[in-house]
């Protein structure tokens, strides 16, 4: 039966994507709305897109149910997210819309008007890629190619005059068996590393870290989209710096002072050791509340940036997250001394709502 639901379904998806795009700013500032589901897919709960009707106020309508319970026993939650879209029945579930990362990136690009990243030319780096394109006479049973095997058997039976047209049965024997096999090809790749640095001194609270977490989700999504291979690296620092895993990065909270240069130094060591700049596209994102130890450390930072980072990395992004403490001076110093560097981007993030603009600033250069 040929139905045309595909047509209506695609149109519905377009409308849904339009809705999501409309609300992208909201999704970007409230990370919990996006639920990762499986590989490369997120799901977004969306209230039913409704065609308006004359209808009763469901809150006042009430209804009839059945079962045990005294007067006053609760039977269902009234509120649904968004408030306005309470359905016909209490507890009516929302539509979950699944989007691939690919689609999400597409929206991100369109909505933020982001240019494509052009990787630094590293055409001479290849990776071996296996592709199942060949057919072999031997191989593991799990890779047996049924169609080809039966074709061989049929050929053999026809040639040998064993094929009975009245009773068309094809029985493959050992020699007929064919297997899928792979060929190895060399594929040029562009590699990228994303280096996150965060100040975890006392002045960076949970709210500041939440902002960093959300930004890093979108940054990862965007950069990964452009490279075959992407590595990430996390550095936390207070007065001293250390490399941690992703989990720790967002959880850790230390006391003590702040010495940003410690992170810069460690970062540069890591780059030199593991991600030589002539092989890797390097992205550095640093987040702090801009309160640095003022014993001349900021000068050291500027020197490190000027000499090591800026000549070697694709982008150096500094996001200054507003906190109740601290002067927030760091960004002024960077602006004054390095403001004109082409691959340095500075952004002030005062609240979750500004994540959108901050990401746009960071990724808007197509580096």
């Amino acid at each position, binding site marked *: *039966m040929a*139905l*045309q*639901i595909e*047509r*209506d*379904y*695609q*149109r*519905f*998806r*377009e*409308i849904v994507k339009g809705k999501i795009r409309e609300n992208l700013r909201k999704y970007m500032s409230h990370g919990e709305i996006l639920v990762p589901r499986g590989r490369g897919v997120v799901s977004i709960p969306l209230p*039913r*897109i409704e*065609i*308006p*009707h*004359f*209808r*009763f*106020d*469901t*809150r*006042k*309508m*009430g*209804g*009839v*149910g*059945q*079962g*045990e*319970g*005294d*007067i*006053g*026993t*609760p*039977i*269902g*939650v*009234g*509120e649904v997210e968004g408030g*306005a879209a309470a359905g016909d*029945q*209490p*507890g009516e579930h929302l*539509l*979950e*819309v699944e989007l691939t990362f690919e689609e999400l990136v597409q929206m991100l690009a369109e909505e933020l008007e982001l240019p494509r990243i052009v990787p630094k030319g590293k055409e001479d780096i290849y990776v071996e890629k296996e592709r199942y394109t060949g057919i072999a006479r031997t191989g593991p049973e799990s890779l047996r190619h049924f169609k080809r095997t039966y074709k061989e058997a049929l050929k053999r039976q026809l040639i040998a005059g064993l094929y009975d047209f009245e009773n068309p049965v094809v029985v493959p024997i050992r020699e007929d068996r064919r297997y899928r096999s792979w060929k190895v090809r060399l594929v040029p790749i562009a590699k990228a590393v994303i280096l996150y640095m965060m100040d975890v001194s006392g002045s960076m609270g949970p709210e500041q870290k939440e902002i960093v977490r959300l930004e890093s989700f979108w940054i990862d999504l965007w950069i990964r989209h452009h490279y075959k291979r992407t590595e990430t690296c996390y550095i936390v620092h207070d007065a001293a710096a250390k490399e941690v895993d992703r989990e720790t990065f967002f959880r850790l909270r230390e006391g003590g002072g702040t010495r940003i240069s410690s992170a810069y130094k460690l970062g540069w060591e890591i780059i030199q050791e593991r991600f030589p700049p002539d092989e890797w596209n390097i992205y550095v994102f640093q987040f702090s509340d801009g309160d640095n130890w003022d014993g001349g450390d900021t000068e050291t930072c500027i020197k490190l940036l000027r000499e090591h980072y800026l000549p070697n990395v694709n982008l150096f992004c500094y996001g200054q997250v507003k906190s109740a403490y601290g002067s927030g001076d760091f960004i002024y110093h960077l602006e004054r001394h390095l403001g004109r560097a082409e691959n340095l981007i500075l952004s002030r993030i005062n609240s979750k709502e500004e994540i959108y603009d901050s990401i746009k600033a960071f990724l808007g250069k197509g580096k």
Partner: protein
Amino acid sequence: MARWTHEQIQDVVQEVYEYVLQEGLDPLETVFEIVDYETMNELAAYGGFPKRYPHWSFGMEYEYIRQSYRYGLHRIYEMVVNNDPAYAYLLESNTLVDQKMVIAHVFAHSDFFKNNTWFSKTNRKMIDTMANHEATIQTYIERYGPEEVESFLDICLSLEDLIDFHSLFIPRKSRQKPEEVQPRPTPVKLKVPRPYLDPYINPPEFIEAQKQQHEKKRQTPPPFPIAPEKDVLLFLIEHAPLENWQKVILSIIRDESYYFAPQRATKIMNEGWATFWHSRIMTRYLLKDPEVIEYADKHSGVLAAPPHRLNPYKLGYELWKDIEERWNKGRFGPEWEACDDMRVKAQWDRKLGLGLQKIFEVRRFANDLTFIDQFLTEEFCARHKLFVYQYNRETGYYEIKDRDYQKVKQQLLLQLTNFGKPIIYVQDGNYKNRGELYLKHKHEGVDLDIPYAKETLKNIYALWKRPVHLETVIQNRRRVLTYDGGSHLEVQMA
């Protein structure tokens, strides 16, 4: 792999059909097709029809059905289309026991379609008609562009409930507008036996007053529409300044709305009827010993009743059983009503055996509203623990509010009146003699959802192209909502 063959299914269909006739059911000719769950979901999104006009809302419906299937919330075992012949779809993954149950279920639906009065005016060639609708709208899409047609469909669908379910049964004279120019009536004079008595019997002042009255009446235009008009869609088709293709689309939406109306008006009865008969036919004839447990499991699945949702299958089924039992045992009439000895009532059995006769009679004439009104008894309410729930603003929960029989019934009737949709009339199509449209909501205790009403008014404005008013009641005060093309207005009435 299927655990049955197509020949087996054909045999079951034949067998069930014979039992069905034997039991007195009278189904339409019914064509069975076996489909996989994807096709079933697609068909369900289209209301059972293989072809519908293009609209994204079907795609959305499909997504809902697919997701609830995937989360195991919901599975469609069968679907029947009211058509002649009726089309029934059976799910490929059903077990043989499922198929037996479902085939019996389908025949009962088919019987209901054929014999219930409310279906008597439905188009029995709807599958063809739907395909024609699709073709028509497709040509408009080619001519006027998909966006233009889609946004017009959005507007039409927003108004699809504004029909008069009963109007199909009311023979009407021509719907022509009344004559604009009427002959001037002559004043009525009483008969005078002698001419000289005339000035006394018919005083000149009286004649003059009559003349003036006529003159005044002639100058005020007749009301338009003559009487309040519940079929708002028809009113718009006839009187809104629409292009021809727009009128055709609006008529298509209206036709489909009328086609589906009886199904919405008899949901509880119809599902209950099908469940009643599949249960009866299965247990009397079809069920083999090893199948009993599986059948019992599936049957109770059909009747599952989560507390916050009234399962129409369950309610309908229990009511049909209750009616059958009551008329078998003679538990009706003044004597039964008057009896207040519970022990006597529990033993009451006049052995009348009128059960089947009664349910066939009810199946012919009732709809959900009259069904509930006549047959939902106090005993039934108590036995099935029915209650009224209400939203509690303070806790944010829906809570059990009342178990009183009258309240339960009242609430059900409220929900079933006009399919649970507000009743809206066209009161005046030439409001204030300015060509504005004045609608009136017949308030029956529950307020409208105001944000939705405002959005809907916008859509009516888009068709009428002059200001649109809606008179309603908000928190016990009469109000008029107005949309004038630019902004909304809300005025409290004196």
